[in-house]
């Protein structure tokens, strides 16, 4: 692709060309540059849209998921018309409509230790828009080992973080977070929820930082972490320094190649069955329905938060939110058969682990949660 701008491109990018910091030279630089967006969800949507609009010559999109209606509250690159389609295809179509002059390369696969170098090596910057700890550590390590900037953004409910991790000139993600939190401490957006506009705020900051890095202008967030809280409307900045004990970019680094990130984080990464407690521990919704018809119906334990009961509920279920379960075990009869459920099976799988370690033996996890029940047993219930 020629880096010269056509007359059409000059018109398209005229508002950039008017800024002295960008100008014709800067716009040509953007045309010659490339960015890999990992995840086309809440963060990836605004990042990819704005990078495409800005005229980044080549944009890579990595995702393995399909568009779901519950995505559309925040994943604005997709639309009602693309529900059910591959996310990378849905996103590519939108980007090419926004800017047909750029090249969009899609990778319909989870980002893993096996494919990460192959996918990432031909891009100038990586943008971390993933939704889980294993892929975040993977993205970081790929960037450190390939010597590329990692444009970081992360969100939870009303909180957002952003930074530029570039181990060549500053700290990396592992310098700040040497280890992930134990599984279950920090809920995912699917479990804990997220304000739809929050990834818009953080994603546009990531897009801004990517453009600055590619243009070589301004002061990127290297060695700084932005902390945003939407409820308080606060933006705080803290200083980050290289951690001398960092296992991948410190002087005594022992991580020289990509590792098993699911093992490192103690949790499955992307692409696994999130609603299962593991073989032998699950019961599916139709099985539970027939058990409940019988004479020895099991106790139903709902470990969701009380406000979720307003959306959907099962009759005669006992509600003890997961966070309170450890302190309220004495309310449960360990001799009785029990089926634990939540929205989709993730929290109940964790509750099951807790119950089993406390000596409960007759417990099962409702595979896929109350949403699976709503899908296959009681279709009058909403799915959320």
């Amino acid at each position, binding site marked *: 692709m020629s880096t010269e701008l056509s007359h059409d491109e000059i018109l398209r990018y005229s508002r950039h060309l008017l800024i002295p910091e960008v100008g014709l030279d800067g716009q040509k630089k953007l045309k010659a540059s490339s960015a890999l967006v990992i*995840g086309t*969800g*809440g*963060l*990836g949507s605004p990042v990819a849209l704005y990078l495409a609009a800005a005229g980044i010559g080549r944009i890579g999109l990595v995702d393995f998921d399909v568009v779901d209606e519950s995505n559309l509250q925040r994943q604005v690159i997709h639309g009602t018309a693309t529900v059910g389609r591959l996310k990378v295809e849905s996103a590519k179509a939108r980007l090419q409509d926004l800017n047909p002059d750029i090249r969009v390369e899609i990778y319909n696969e989870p980002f893993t230790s096996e494919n990460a170098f192959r996918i990432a090596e031909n891009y100038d910057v990586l943008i*971390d*828009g*993933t*939704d*889980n*700890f294993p892929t*975040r550590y993977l993205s970081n390590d790929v960037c450190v080992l390939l010597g590329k900037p990692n444009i970081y*953004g*992360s*969100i*939870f*409910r*009303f*909180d957002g*973080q952003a930074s530029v991790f570039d181990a060549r000139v500053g700290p990396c993600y592992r310098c*700040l*977070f*040497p*280890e*992930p*939190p*134990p599984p279950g*401490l*920090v*809920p*995912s*957006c699917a479990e*804990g929820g*997220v304000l739809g506009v929050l*990834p818009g705020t953080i994603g546009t900051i990531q897009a801004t930082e990517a453009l600055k890095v590619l243009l070589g202008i301004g002061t990127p967030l290297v060695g700084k*972490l932005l*902390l945003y*809280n939407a*409820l*308080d409307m606060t933006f*705080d*900045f*803290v*200083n*980050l*320094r290289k*951690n001398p004990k960092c296992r991948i970019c410190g002087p005594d680094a022992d991580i020289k190649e990509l590792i098993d990130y699911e093992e490192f984080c103690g949790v499955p990464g992307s692409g696994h069955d999130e609603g299962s407690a593991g073989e032998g521990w699950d019961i599916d919704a139709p099985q539970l329905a027939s058990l409940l018809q019988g004479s020895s119906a099991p106790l139903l334990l709902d470990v969701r938060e009380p406000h979720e009961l307003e959306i959907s509920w099962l009759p005669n279920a006992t509600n003890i939110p997961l*966070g309170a379960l450890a302190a309220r075990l004495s309310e449960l009869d360990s001799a009785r058969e029990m089926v634990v459920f939540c929205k989709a099976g993730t929290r109940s799988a964790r509750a099951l682990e807790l119950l089993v370690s406390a000596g409960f033996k007759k417990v099962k996890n409702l595979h896929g949660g109350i949403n699976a029940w709503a899908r296959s047993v009681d279709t009058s219930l909403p799915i959320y």
Partner: protein
Amino acid sequence: MTTIRIPTPLRGYTGGQSEIPVTGETVAQALADLTARYPAIKPHLLQDDGELRPFVNLFKGEENVNDLQGLETSLTETDKLLLIPSIAGG
């Protein structure tokens, strides 16, 4: 008075409060005051040996206490402590 800002994921352990005034001349004393009043937050911040857990970052103003004197970092009445959690949503 020194304050500690509590991030959203941990507010469930502080009765929903986002900013908590604490007393203490060092970070360790301030954390002792916080965890004495909100015991449920303690296992999320400190290891059994009293050190900060490795996925928890505590900043005094703009500086990570690990880059200062760790838990022995001194505090004044006007200092603001900031707890930074690992979050992964996207």
